[in-house]
């Protein structure tokens, strides 16, 4: 038969088991055997310190009162862990690299190792956690009370009325002993408490096992199956609560998600005690699974409890009272141990986390500011820290106990869990902002935190004392009767759920101040440096710090400092090790900036970043933070992006330019080739007549006995050749003038068709001589164009004579067609000669084009004709083209803009 004393002795035996587990793990860890303790499963189980007795007993109570709402407390953490890659991984990495010892340390370190911020965070954590610890004490004593009442036994002969206070005290004392023994064994560079973690993991298994056992029993033994349980009338009552899925649902999910990151004990376990970032991969699904299992039977237990237990039973104790009602002593005992486990694990981890924060962020700064005592003795700081931690653990538990006694008669504790969540959620803006926003500043974080906590205290914490030290009128009518300041309806926000109301105002103000103040205040160099190191933690190793801070110190001073904090052995090893890393044979390393940064990080692991910085600064002789270097790093990403964009742009431009250059080069090459051809052609053309002139003049000079006839004939040849030379030079000159636009003609309206007719007539004789059949088809008559009469005539004659000269056909024909098309006077000169090879179509318009027409060696002329013709036409705004060949022969087209067409014959 169960009795209070049996329960007590079982609890004591269980505590003894915990001591044993912690002791063995710690001893093994000291010897370097860490196998099981460092496994991802143990890590995950220890995270379940999230599930306190509030979960163990309170979840069923919450389900009985508000249905599914209890699930929000687990859904938030589930989401955070499913998305571990984004937030938790970064936190863990930062915690590892910067040797973060607590959430206060992380926030203070991020904002320039600020002491004031660390103090504020620590105070908030203590204020938020003390009631939470009281809640655990209350849960354990209540479970004792339930058993004592139900079995009508007394605990060690104590009267039931005094039971709560005395048991509460002894529980608190027992937990203090455990925590001091295993939580403050040493100042560790990374604050790992292997014994504690092992004990917590065991407790996690015990509470899960207990809850599953009682759940299975309730559902299948009492309820008779899942479907039967949900068919109970109370099921409908529980699930049909009004507005389960409103703003409160959202707010609670958000709050629990924030709490799993911000609660000091969660930070301690998830970040500080983390030994391997890879463990998060397991925790990412295993912890949600743990939460899932632990809340699986919450609803059925609540439903069955409401249905079978007498009205007025405390739903918070259903987990325990149900098995007791059915005389399942062993199960009840198991449940009690489960509840006891969840309470103790929370209290132990929370008090460790808080004691680290108190000693590092409150005691150390005070000691550092005291007038310098005698020269530090080796290990004195270490001793001081350990003592202060032990005392803080005692004080914190005492505070929790005092709170528990003060509010033992009120129901305020029930809501305490959520109030604590809302309190620590104030860390969220500074924490997240600090991890992802470069501009986030210390003053922003400080003002946001302070304002948020004050509003939280006023709107949520204060009303929880209603009926006790706080009068109801303050809540209902506001202070001094000012209704706008009613704590649960600030500025007339009536009818909102008090928790949602408080969250809205506190976090809203917190966030607004954080962002605004950060935007308007410039960062100090150290803040900027820390911001960069934290935000880009995956790109910057912590060693980067030495890139920016230049410091120097005497190695002896540093050694004394390290000894004071770490103790002689550890300090010596640290120094030797770094000396070896520097490649020095000596036991003492060079006190360069890298070593100082390394040492400061090591010390920060023990005493917090802010205190470590203060202490190191005391022995440092000079410190400069290289802002230029820092800015360069901050802008690194930006610059890389910018550069690559610029590069892309430039390379596009380069491609275009290269293309243009290639084209220009081709053109130049062609021009160069043309120039060479031109020169050789000119010399050739000049040489031939010159040769004959020279030879004939030599004959004339040397042979005096030539007949007059002969002399005359030779002179005639010389004359003809001279004419040819002159003509050639004239043409070249003409062309070059034309091309440079140096000739000044006056364009006047002329009758183009008349000029064409005259040109045809001029060439008629030549055509007759070559027996070419000329056909003229003048479809346009009396067409006025702007032109130079003689030059236009020259154009037509050139084209016609070319067509006659180069026609090698047996029955040479020439067809000249004139017309007006689209406001242009068009003349086509078509022959039936050999035509122009496609490759030569453009070339024939260049100078000495004849040079290429090797197919026609008999042809005469310098080959400047078409080039001159085209140049002339261009001067008259006209064009000369070779039409795409249609059948045999070539067809040249002259086109000139018409000024006025009197009549179109073709119409």
């Amino acid at each position, binding site marked *: 038969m169960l009795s209070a004393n049996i329960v007590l002795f079982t609890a004591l035996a269980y505590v003894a088991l915990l001591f044993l587990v912690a002791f063995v793990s710690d001893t093994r*860890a*000291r*010897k*370097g055997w*860490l196998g099981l303790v*460092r496994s991802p499963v143990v890590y995950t189980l220890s995270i379940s310190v999230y599930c306190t007795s509030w979960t163990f007993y309170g979840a069923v109570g919450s389900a009985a009162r508000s249905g*599914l709402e209890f*699930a929000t407390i687990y*859904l938030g953490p*589930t*989401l955070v*862990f*499913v*998305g*571990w*890659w*984004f937030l938790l991984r970064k936190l863990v990495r930062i915690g*590892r690299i910067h040797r973060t010892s607590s959430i206060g340390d992380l926030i203070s370190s991020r904002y320039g190792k600020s002491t004031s911020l660390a103090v504020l965070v620590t105070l908030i954590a203590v204020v938020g956690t003390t009631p939470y610890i009281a809640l655990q004490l209350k849960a354990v004593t209540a479970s004792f009370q339930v058993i004592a009442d139900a079995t009508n036994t007394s605990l060690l002969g104590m009267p039931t009325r005094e039971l709560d206070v005395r048991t509460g005290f002894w529980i608190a004392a027992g937990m203090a002993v455990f925590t001091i023994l295993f939580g403050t*064994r*040493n100042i*560790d*560079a*990374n604050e*790992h408490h292997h014994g504690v973690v092992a004990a917590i993991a065991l407790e996690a298994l015990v509470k899960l096992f207990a809850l599953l056992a009682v759940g299975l029993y309730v559902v299948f033994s009492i309820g008779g199956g*899942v*479907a039967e349980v*949900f*068919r109970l009338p109370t*099921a*409908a009552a529980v*699930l*049909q609560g009004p507005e389960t*899925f*409103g703003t409160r*649902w*959202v707010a609670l*999910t958000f709050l629990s998600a924030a709490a799993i990151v911000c609660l000091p004990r969660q930070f301690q376990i998830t970040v500080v005690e983390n*030994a*391997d*970032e*890879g463990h998060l*991969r*397991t925790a*990412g*699904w295993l912890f*949600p*699974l743990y939460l*899932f299992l632990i809340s*699986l039977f919450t*609803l059925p237990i609540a439903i069955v409890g409401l249905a079978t237990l007498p009205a007025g039973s405390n739903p918070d104790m259903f987990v325990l009272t149900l098995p007791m009602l059915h005389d399942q002593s062993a199960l009840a005992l198991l449940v009690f141990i489960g509840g006891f486990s969840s309470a103790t694990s929370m209290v132990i981890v929370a008090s460790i986390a808080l004691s680290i924060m108190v000693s590092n962020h409150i005691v150390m700064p005070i000691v550092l500011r005291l007038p310098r005592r005698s020269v530090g003795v080796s290990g004195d700081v270490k001793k001081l820290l350990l003592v202060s931690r032990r005392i803080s653990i005692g004080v914190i538990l005492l505070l929790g106990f005092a709170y528990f006694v003060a509010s033992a008669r009120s129901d305020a504790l029930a809501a305490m869990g959520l109030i604590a969540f809302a309190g620590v959620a104030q860390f969220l803006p500074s924490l997240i902002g600090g991890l992802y926003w470069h501009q986030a500043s210390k003053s922003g974080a400080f003002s946001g935190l302070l304002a948020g906590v004050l509003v939280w205290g006023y709107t949520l914490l204060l009303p929880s004392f209603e009926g006790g030290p706080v009068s109801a009128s303050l809540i209902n009518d506001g202070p001094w009767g000012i209704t706008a300041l009613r704590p649960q309806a600030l500025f007339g926000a009536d009818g909102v759920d008090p928790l949602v109301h408080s969250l809205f105002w506190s976090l809203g103000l917190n966030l607004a101040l954080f962002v605004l103040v950060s935007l308007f205040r410039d960062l100090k160099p150290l803040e900027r440096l820390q911001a960069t190191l934290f935000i880009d933690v995956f790109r910057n190793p912590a060693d980067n710090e030495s890139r920016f801070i230049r410091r120097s110190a005497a190695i002896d001073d540093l050694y004394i400092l390290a000894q004071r904090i*770490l*103790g002689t*052995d*550890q*300090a010596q*090893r*640290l120094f030797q*090790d*770094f000396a070896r*890393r520097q490649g020095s044979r000596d036991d003492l390393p060079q006190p360069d900036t890298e070593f100082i940064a390394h040492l400061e990080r090591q010390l920060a692991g023990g005493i917090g970043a802010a205190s470590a910085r203060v202490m190191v600064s005391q022995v440092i002789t000079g410190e400069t933070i290289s802002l230029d270097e820092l800015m360069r790093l901050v802008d690194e990403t930006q610059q890389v992006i910018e550069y690559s964009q610029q590069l892309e742009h430039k390379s596009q431009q380069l491609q275009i330019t290269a293309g243009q250059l290639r084209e220009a080069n081709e053109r130049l090459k062609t021009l160069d080739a043309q120039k060479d051809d031109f020169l050789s052609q000119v010399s050739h053309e000049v040489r031939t007549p010159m040769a004959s002139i020279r030879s004939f003049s030599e004959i004339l000079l040397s042979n005096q006995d030539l007949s007059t006839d002969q002399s005359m004939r030779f002179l005639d040849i010389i004359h003809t050749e001279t004419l040819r030379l002159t003509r050639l030079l004239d043409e070249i000159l003409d062309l070059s003038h034309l091309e440079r636009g140096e000739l000044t003609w006056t364009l006047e309206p002329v009758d183009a068709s008349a000029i064409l007719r005259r040109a045809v007539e001029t060439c008629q004789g030549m055509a007759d001589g070559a027996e070419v059949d000329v056909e003229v088809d003048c479809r346009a008559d009396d067409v006025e164009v702007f032109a130079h009469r003689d030059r236009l005539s020259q154009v037509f004659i050139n084209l016609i004579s070319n067509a006659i000269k180069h026609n090698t056909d047996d029955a040479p024909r020439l067809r000249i067609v004139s017309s007006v098309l689209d406001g242009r006077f068009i003349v086509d000169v078509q022959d039936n000669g050999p035509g122009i090879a496609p490759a030569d179509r453009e070339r024939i318009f260049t100078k000495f084009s004849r040079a290429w027409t090797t197919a026609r060696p008999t042809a005469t002329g310098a080959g400047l004709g078409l080039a001159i013709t085209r140049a002339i036409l261009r001067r008259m705004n006209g064009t000369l083209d070779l039409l795409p060949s249609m059948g045999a022969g070539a067809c040249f087209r002259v086109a000139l803009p018409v000024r006025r067409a009197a009549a179109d014959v073709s119409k």
Partner: protein
Amino acid sequence: MSRHSTRDAILVATVFGAILLMPPIIPFFDRPVSLFGMPLIVVYVFGIWLALIGLSWRLSRQLPVEGTREPIVPPAIDDAGRHEKAD
């Protein structure tokens, strides 16, 4: 799946999980209908929950472990010394 797409999948799972569990979607399932002998809303909430766990399990296994494991940290007292050796 590459590391990037796995990372994106984790983000999508987290965000969608949150959306599915929030109003206005969740009240849609809050109606007196039974499924497997349980109210629809209970099956829905716990079903999404389990699906998230499954997804997280599947995706976490695909992510590479980065070289972040701390060297085995031996006894706290001489921690710093040996710890540095392993670096």
